[in-house]
């Protein structure tokens, strides 16, 4: 069977239909029934199959071209010339791989910790996976928007149904915040449709736009993506959502959904609005640096582990946006490329590391039912294997060389040094702050005397948990020690993107 013609469709729809099958069959309201067990197996099977197929995507991906690959194109809604148009390049392919890699791990992580309605739980994750792959693969703005918004629905239910005490507040805030952010993007899409006559990303990138148009559209995109990333000051939904979401929800949220914002900047804002992006690049850099420094300080003060990791996510995502918007302040192409590539690598790395950190907290939470740092202490004594993993991921979170966290941050810091010493100065504070909040948390949770009798009774990782954390640890080290395949995959695409951004789109300049 030749998969190259429809591999993307399969990746999008296989999980969605798998999830629907899970919903249809259901578990009869009993989590321990044989039916529920077979539903778990089905969920694992579908997500693993999706991952295997995405390996095929990786192996037949041509790294020597910047053009779209595995393109699928068919008319969908003729009235608006909307197309079903999918394709990947060196930026979206790694993100799709990240999605297909994380989802089976999330399924395994929720294997027997989800006691109520497991069938719906796994169905929500599978449907979410398909929709997220759709966001990364869509090349038609309408299709992109449909995936982008539809994605909110399963996440809304995941947080609301299986979340913690304040789940309803958190999930409503999550939904309304992101919905508010995206609707203005829709208005911009329709405006651009009015100019070009279709919803194709490439025609959006080709159409000349005045500076004012570019500025306004940029702001509408900014709201959508800044909420997703999230950037300071529209980040406040994230700590709530993360804290209340079940472990799997937090992992997907941190590992993949936050990447949508960064992806949106590179796929839409930068190529479609080069002059608008240049105009606002100072603002973007300022917001990114505020995220890095201020949110880093906020993270230091947290007493709740999940909240701490949530804030550290915001700080790390600040690096992503910093890397993307540095290029106007750098003379020479190599620095710009470094910043852009660093931002993308940071997205992948953060996906692995933050996902792993949330899984670690989940492991503890399943045993003690508390996320408070103060309720732990000396976990290393009773859970040595777990402690080893957690320390590794914490090091990666702090950006230790040899882990994936180092690569992206280092590239972005070098690029910002080329741009402006002060940018580099503020960006580099993360090396101090990140180490401080992460390691301080590790010290209080993992090391020291056994804090209380709950900790004393802890059981170390079971095989299932060991597998999940082990796979993630390997990937964190792999990306950290040998990032070349990842960087090669995106280098042509980044070059082409930089060329595209360098060209003004103002009317009359082309």
């Amino acid at each position, binding site marked *: 069977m030749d998969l190259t013609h429809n591999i993307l469709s399969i990746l999008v729809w296989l999980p969605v239909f798998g999830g629907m099958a899970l919903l249809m069959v259901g578990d009869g309201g009993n989590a321990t029934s044989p039916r529920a067990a077979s539903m778990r197996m089905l969920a694992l099977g579908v997500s693993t199959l999706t991952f295997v197929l995405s390996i095929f995507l990786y192996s037949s991906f041509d790294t020597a071209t910047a053009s779209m690959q595995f393109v699928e194109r068919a008319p969908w809604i003729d009235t608006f010339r909307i197309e079903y148009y999918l394709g990947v390049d060196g930026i979206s392919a790694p993100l799709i791989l990240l999605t297909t890699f994380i989802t089976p791990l999330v399924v395994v992580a929720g294997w027997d910790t989800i006691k109520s309605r497991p069938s719906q739980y796994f169905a929500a994750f599978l449907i979410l996976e398909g929709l997220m792959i759709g966001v990364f693969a869509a090349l038609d703005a309408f299709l992109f928007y449909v995936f982008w918004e539809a994605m909110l629905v399963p996440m809304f*239910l995941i947080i609301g149904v299986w979340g913690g005490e304040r789940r309803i507040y958190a999930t409503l805030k999550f939904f*309304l915040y992101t919905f508010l952010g995206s609707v203005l993007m829709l208005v911009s899409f*329709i405006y651009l449709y*009015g100019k070009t006559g279709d919803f194709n990303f490439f025609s959006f990138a080709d159409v000349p736009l005045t500076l004012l148009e570019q500025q306004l559209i940029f702001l509408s995109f900014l709201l959508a993506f800044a909420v997703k990333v999230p950037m300071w000051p529209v980040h406040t939904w994230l700590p709530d959502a993360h804290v209340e979401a079940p472990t799997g929800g937090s992992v997907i949220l941190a590992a993949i959904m936050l990447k949508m914002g960064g992806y949106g900047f590179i796929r839409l804002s930068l190529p479609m609005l080069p002059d608008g992006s240049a105009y606002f690049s100072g603002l973007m850099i300022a917001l990114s640096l505020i995220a890095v420094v201020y949110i880093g300080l906020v993270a230091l003060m947290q007493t709740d582990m999940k909240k701490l990791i949530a804030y550290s996510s915001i700080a790390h995502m600040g690096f992503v946006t910093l890397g993307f918007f540095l290029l106007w302040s750098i003379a020479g192409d190599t620095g710009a490329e470094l910043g852009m590539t660093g931002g993308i690598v940071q997205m992948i790395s953060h996906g692995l590391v933050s996902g792993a950190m949330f899984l670690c907290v989940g492991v503890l939470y399943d045993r003690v039912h508390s996320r408070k740092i103060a309720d732990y202490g000396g976990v290393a004594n009773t859970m040595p294997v777990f402690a080893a993993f957690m320390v590794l991921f914490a090091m990666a979170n702090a950006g230790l060389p040899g882990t994936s966290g180092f690569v992206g941050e280092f590239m972005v810091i070098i690029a910002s040094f080329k741009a402006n010493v002060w940018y580099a100065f503020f960006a580099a504070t993360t090396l101090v702050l990140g180490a401080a909040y992460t390691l301080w948390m590790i010290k209080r949770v993992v090391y020291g005397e056994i804090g209380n009798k709950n900790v004393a009774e802890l059981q170390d990782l079971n095989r299932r948990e060991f597998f999940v954390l082990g796979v993630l640890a390997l990937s964190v080290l792999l990306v950290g020690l040998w990032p070349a395949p990842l960087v090669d995959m995106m280098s042509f695409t980044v070059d082409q993107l930089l060329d595209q951004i360098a060209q003004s789109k103002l009317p009359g300049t082309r």
Partner: protein
Amino acid sequence: MNLSQISPAAPEITLTLMICVVLLADLFVPQEKRVITFWLSIASLAVTAWVIVVTASSATTLAFDGSYVSDPLSRLMKLCATGIVGVGFLYARDYLQQNDLLKGEYYLLGLFGLLGMMIMMSANSLLTMYLGLETLSLSLYALVAFERESAKAAESAMKYFVLGAIASGALLYGISWVYGVTGTLHFHEIAEVIRQNPGLNDVPLWFGIAFMIVGIAFKFGAVPFHMWLPDVYQGARSPVTLYIATAPKIAALALLFRILVDGLGELHGVWQGMIMVVAVLSLLIGNIVAIAQSNIKRMLGYSAIAHVGFILLAVFTGSETGYAAALFYTLTYIVMAAGAFGMVILLSRQGFEAEAIRDFKGLNARNPWFALMMLFFMFGMAGVPPWVGFIAKLNVINAVLEAGFPGLAVLMVLASVVGAYYYLRVIWYMYFDAPEDRSVFQSQADTRFVLSLNGIAVLALGILPGWLLKLCIDVIGHS
């Protein structure tokens, strides 16, 4: 006179004949076999729909001295109205049976109302329009009051009647002014007279237009003429609310199209501003006040006001794109509204009206499938893709942007975000809360089947809306 002269009115004539049959048959049906009336009514609707389909052509034909028109627009509207009335009847049967309300009146009044709507859709003169409107309105007043013992129903019927009569009066008053100025009642002749005498575009005509817009806005339930709507939605029995909330919206759109577009399209600049004010107010007040409701029928009432805001903004643009968008929005909105009220009916049972939003608590634990269907309706109304409400909104926003009003487009999407909150609240009650009531649904398989079909339609239309979008554009282009 030969028969072909009245053939454009074939669907109405068929329906009238069928109504007579139902009326007579109902007299001889014993109460325990009242369900026969139900099946006869469904059969009448089926026959009428069949007649509409077989007489369909892309041509526009006039009858009764030009005061009656049969064109693709009217046929599409009639077909949809017939269908949605049928869906409403199907939903209502079990409910009426359980509450000892299964009476011939419900079906007869419903069919008479449909007849009025069909006349409105085909009206080509102001008087025909008024005739249809009154046939519809009187049926609706009586339907609201049809539960004789209920004081609440009587109160809302009274309110509806008094306010409705005032609105009809305003419309009639406006009609008299327009007639006085232009000297004709036929829409196309009005348009022609105005085109040939630009001097007529002056205060007396504007005065007439303003009064007619009052009447139209009332029938739509647009702010500031919306006072009746929440009270009637709440006071009427759920099947009646379903009826009022669906098909009459198409009829109101026909009223708007025929009068303002066919008749006074030339004066677009005059009525545009009035429609905009009404539409924006509806959008804002509908969405904001809906948040405070604890009664689901009232909440859906305010949400209907907000949806009317969208429909009116599409008409406001004055372009064919806008008219097609308004038509698409109305046709898809009523599908979602029918489903939502269908769920209210499904949850109700003997002596218990599931009208508080609380009654939806824990529906996912009681019946995951119908909770999913309600989720479809709610996200559909909220305008979240991939459900059809999203395409409908996109279509309207596109028309508004094309007409050059980006500010309005932004206002519309922001209002949708406000609106999303109260739809989400229903989903939150269904999925996140534990059930307070664990009784089993008492409806029959066919009702459940239609409700499931309705929910799937909301999703399927959202994923494959192309044919309906095209149909709406074609139909508007031919009229």
